[in-house]
């Protein structure tokens, strides 16, 4: 602070100095947001680390546990099951959702009126709460009174929530059903920002639709792909409500992802210490993934901007 003021005084311009003072006086405007964020997001973040070394059943007194929670959780095969499932659902979801939403985004960025109407309908699943979606899918999957009978497709009449592989596949499908529309929207916006001159030049050079897609659309969307992927990957750590209502983590532990594992250990088994260990792992995974994707984005941003000109 003082060094910048001194620097400005040295320039001798009173006007600039006044502007500087006025601007730095704005800091207090951030206080309400900062206080809320620090008290209800950052402090709990520290708190979860502290609680991971504590003994607490959620009601009684809090005692010190030392490294006990950590050693018990880290040697628990349940952790690695949850961790593996979290990454599996994350990766498969990304592989399923990205091509679909990218292609739909390119498609809906076109200009026919019916595409706009489709885009409106695509948005509908986003309006339903995850709880509602999960409840609706349970009814839909009823072998006798659900979709299987309605469509006359007997292979749909499975015990979806009773067989581990089926339940896992179902969870991934329902997640895609709910979130592809959102990413379609992001890609639609990205496609609309690609300069048309690129396509004109390609057409003059005789490039077909496929060539244009792979050599113009896809590289131009690089930054959009990273934005969408970041939201998708970090978001996948928090698919709690959908899975909680749809499968409750079962059958067995076949859909028990980290967030659900944390909830069940903490609020069902009343083991807040071990649950906090899971929470810390969740935060670390989220931060590492976000940093990795950001680095990817930072590097590519410069490249794609140069290509764009």
């Amino acid at each position: 602070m003082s060094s910048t003021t001194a620097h400005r005084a040295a320039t001798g311009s009173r006007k600039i100095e006044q502007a500087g003072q006025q601007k730095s006086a704005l800091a207090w405007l951030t206080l309400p947001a900062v206080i809320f964020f620090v008290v209800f997001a950052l402090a709990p973040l520290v708190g979860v680390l502290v609680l991971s070394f504590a003994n607490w059943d959620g009601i009684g007194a809090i005692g010190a546990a030392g490294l006990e929670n950590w050693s018990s959780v880290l040697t628990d095969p349940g952790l690695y099951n949850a961790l593996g499932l979290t990454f599996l659902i994350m990766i498969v979801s990304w592989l399923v959702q990205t091509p679909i939403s990218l292609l739909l985004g390119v498609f809906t960025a076109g200009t026919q009126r019916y595409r706009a109407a489709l885009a409106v309908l695509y948005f509908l699943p986003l309006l339903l709460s995850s709880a509602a979606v999960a409840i609706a899918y349970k009814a839909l999957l009823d072998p006798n009174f659900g979709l299987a009978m309605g469509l006359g497709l007997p292979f749909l009449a499975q015990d979806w929530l009773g067989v581990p592989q089926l339940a896992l596949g179902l969870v991934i499908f329902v997640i895609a059903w709910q979130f592809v529309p959102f990413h379609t929207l992001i890609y639609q916006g990205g496609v609309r920002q690609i300069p048309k001159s690129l396509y004109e030049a390609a057409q003059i050079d005789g490039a077909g639709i496929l060539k244009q897609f792979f050599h113009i659309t896809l590289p131009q969307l690089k930054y959009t792909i990273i934005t969408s992927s970041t939201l998708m990957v970090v978001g996948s750590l928090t698919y709690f409500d959908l899975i909680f209502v749809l499968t409750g983590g079962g059958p067995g532990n076949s859909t028990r992802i980290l967030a659900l594992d944390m909830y069940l250990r903490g609020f069902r088994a009343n083991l807040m210490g071990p649950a906090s260990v899971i929470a810390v792992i969740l935060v670390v995974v989220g931060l590492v993934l976000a940093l990795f994707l950001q680095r990817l984005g930072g590097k590519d941003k410069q490249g794609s901007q140069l290509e764009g000109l």
Partner: protein
Amino acid sequence: MSTVLQSDSKTAPATPPAHSTKAKQSLGSRVRRLNIPGGLGGWMWLAIIIVPIYYIVITSLKTSEGYFGQNPLALPATPTLENYQLVLEANFSTYFMNSVIVTLGSVIPTVLISFMAAFAIVRGRGRYLKFVNGMFLMGLAIPLQATIIPIYLMIIRLNLYDSLLAIMLPSVAFAIPLTVLILSNFIRDVPNELFESMRLDGCSDWQTMWRLALPLTRPAIVTVAIYNGLHVWNGFLLPLVLTQSPGLRVLPLGLWTFQGEFSVNIPAVLASVVLSTLPILVIYVLGRRQLVSGLTAGFSK
């Protein structure tokens, strides 16, 4: 040329000038190029989206004989609203009012304090503001659900457990990072000359913020209000962990318990799903252009 799409791109205020002209040009360029695989894929996805929604709506209008006796995808032979009546009699209005209170009580403070912070971050300078901006950006990457246990502890210690305020306070904190990011992106696009002329007219920062930045940021404010509203309205974990009394249930939680109570009456359960979605559908229909163009501009920069 679709007028719907045109007005979408026009109302996108965060798009920098260079980009928006490019976007308009590109809109004009690819008019009516036949894209058969795209069209097929597009309609196929529509079927995947619509069939479950269609099933939910028609089943909610069926009597139990209709549900057990008819083809599940057939229109109800004798459409009935008795499922809706049943749901409305089963505390739906309480859940609904709780959701309204929690949503408004979270969204209004979130937008207000995030707008002030975004204004300061864009218009101010100094190490503190840079730090605050960085802190909120980092907040985007943290799965805030992971903080639920300490929040639970804190809410108990504050004697707020089992109150609607307990849901609102963390909801505001969780929404701040993204709201500040989107709002500051929009405020950054306000031409500096406008701020300068306000200052020459003798307006204070406070006045500039409310009389210049706020009206110009209104489209973004509507966007973040709807986006955050959708999240809080559909929120499940915070109400599940921080409240207990049936009288304090919000809609998603009410749905969940209702499903347990009426598990044999699927049409009634689905009627409650429809009813819980209806208010947000109305808001979406009213604010769709704004929301879609705002989100597009906010995420695809």
